């Protein structure tokens, strides 16, 4: 059932991808709005799938990559839909929808997975770690996507190749979306790192083991900490913030993918 709903969600996200792509290509604002509506419908179905996953008996630990991917894409989509209330970024669906589709598609391919063995006595900490870190990853991903679109738009405006009426978000909207995503994603990532340390402590009796997983996560967290300082304390320019958000997400992705491979 969960797999079937994931497959259906993936199909809906795919429709959102196409609609947003068509909206961008034709400069059609109605297509872009339709894409957001489809994405919201997909997110509802996705919520149902994740709820079913959480209420399964016995409840799965959700620490496997497929579950994490599904949760990340859900958190990213929900965060994006929530962002729409703060910034006019409906055009960002052109990047969010494909990412959501990829996450759910990956999950649909691999669910249900045998969960990695959890450490006895760690309780719900592994579950919380996966949820918090995944949500943080999703939001920082959203900041990275906003940064990517910002840079593309910035480049186009600087080169006098602007497309008025294309339905693409304004630079200010993208910058604001990036700021909000970073401001919410970083605390979640921080909580993810803390719960991760608690999990390691429960398993090994110490918060640090020096594993690549730990080192990578700490480096990524430290880098993001720096980015947060630069953006909110040093008032870095919008283009530099966009570059930083994209670079930070690239590093974080490399760490997550690297951890998965290792």
């Amino acid at each position, binding site marked *: 059932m969960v797999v079937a709903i994931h497959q259906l969600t993936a199909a809906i996200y795919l429709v959102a991808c196409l609609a947003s792509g068509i909206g961008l290509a034709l400069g059609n604002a109605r297509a872009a709005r339709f894409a957001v509506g489809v994405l919201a419908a997909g997110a509802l179905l996705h919520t149902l799938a994740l709820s079913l996953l959480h209420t399964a008996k016995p409840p799965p630990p959700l620490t496997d990559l497929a579950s994490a991917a599904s949760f990340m894409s859900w958190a990213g989509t929900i965060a994006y839909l929530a962002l729409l209330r703060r910034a006019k970024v409906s055009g960002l669906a052109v990047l969010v929808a494909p990412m959501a589709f990829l996450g759910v598609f990956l999950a649909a391919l691999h669910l249900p997975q045998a969960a990695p063995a959890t450490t006895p006595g760690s309780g719900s900490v592994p579950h919380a770690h996966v949820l918090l870190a995944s949500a943080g990853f999703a939001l920082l991903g959203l900041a990275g996507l906003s940064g990517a679109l910002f840079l593309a738009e910035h480049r186009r405006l600087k080169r006098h190749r602007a497309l*008025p009426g294309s339905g693409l978000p304004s630079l200010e909207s993208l910058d604001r979306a990036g700021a909000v995503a970073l401001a919410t994603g970083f605390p979640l990532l921080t909580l993810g790192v803390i719960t991760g340390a608690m999990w390691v402590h429960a398993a090994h009796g110490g918060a640090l083991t020096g594993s690549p997983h730990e080192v990578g996560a700490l480096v990524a967290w430290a880098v993001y900490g720096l980015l947060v300082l630069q953006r909110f304390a040093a008032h870095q320019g919008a283009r530099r913030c966009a570059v930083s958000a994209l670079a930070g997400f690239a590093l974080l992705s490399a760490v997550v993918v690297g951890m998965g491979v290792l």
Partner: protein
Amino acid sequence: MKLLLLGMNHRTAPLELRERLAVADPGPPLQKLVSCDEIDEAVLLSTCNRVEVIALTRSPDAARLRLRSFFRRELAGDAAELTTRALDEALYEYRDGEAMRHVMRVAAALDSMVVGEPQILGQIKDAYRAAVECGASGPILDRLYQRAFATAKRVRTDTRIAEGPLSVARVAVALARQIFEDMTGKHALLIGAGEMAELALGALRDAGLASLAIANRSAERAAQLAVAYGATAHGLDELPRLLAESDVVLTSIGGDRPILRVDTVEPALRARRGRPIFVIDIGVPRNADPAIDRLDDVYRYDIDALGAVASDNAEERRREQARAEAIVAEEQQRFEGWFAALRAVPTIRDLRGRVEVIRARETSRALSRLALDPERREAVELLTRSLVNKILHAPLARLRREAEREEGMAYLELARLLFGLDDADWDAAGAEAVDAPDGPPDPGLDEP
């Protein structure tokens, strides 16, 4: 008489070249131009997008050389870096019908960077007025420009080309929406208070900005505009502070040196803590140094860049353009007919003169034999004039009509031949001919 138009516009010449040739007061160079033998009448149009001279000449080849020299020496000031080749590549040239059509298309804003924009007509009227005031425009160009103004009016009323949001200023506002999420909280600064600035001001006001400031060299003019548009007026000395407060900066001010340079914009950006500034530079010469493009948070669009964006978005207006072009073609044909008919003028003038001499001489001779009181003499004068006019009316009207066609030139030549209008010894021959009625009767006339 031939019409010759030489010029360059936003399509043939880069802004740097147009800046160099731009003329603030066309009077003095025009006076110089029409003082040349080969130029009879001339009008010089200099706007941010074009520099053109149209001339009426009797020797087109010499006039062509004269106009090229005028562009190079008078307008470009013999600039060493401006090669003859660069100028030749930028200049276009139209003659007669093409020149008429071009003038009408420009007036109707069909040749504008933003098709259908309203500013150009006012600029052409100014250029024409300047030519009239300095005595450079004569009856032919007067007629052409009146026709062009009428054409522009017809195009505006009979087509929808002037509708829609695409004036340069409105394109700028559309671009601003790509940078800023919402214009309602934004502050705009207008540098300059000229006509172009005022036109742009309307579009900015309509965008719903939070505040509008006008900075100008003449505080009085800035204050006038400020009152009309609900803005605040400032002097240029307040520019650093105003820049730091402004999200959208529109510049259209005279001067040889850019007013917005890296050293003026950079401190403002620092004060704005990374918030971007959108600079719309519609001044010619440019008011914003292109070097400010290297500043991350500055988006500078000059008149060419705005035009490039506008042309991508003018499809709707282009549909109306075909209808407008048809109106221009019709008006051009009408004017061309009138202009061509001018070819008949020397023949008609000569013929009338010839007949008038004969009439006057014969009337005088007859009156000298008749002892008439002044009233009757006047009646006889009137009678002969009336006879001559009535006899000549039909052939002269035909000559005028035929002169509008290239093939009609044969009629003019025939008329000159039949009436001996080119005979150098006419006075003597004419005198004899005038005496002819006293000689033997013309046999042809007596035959049935």
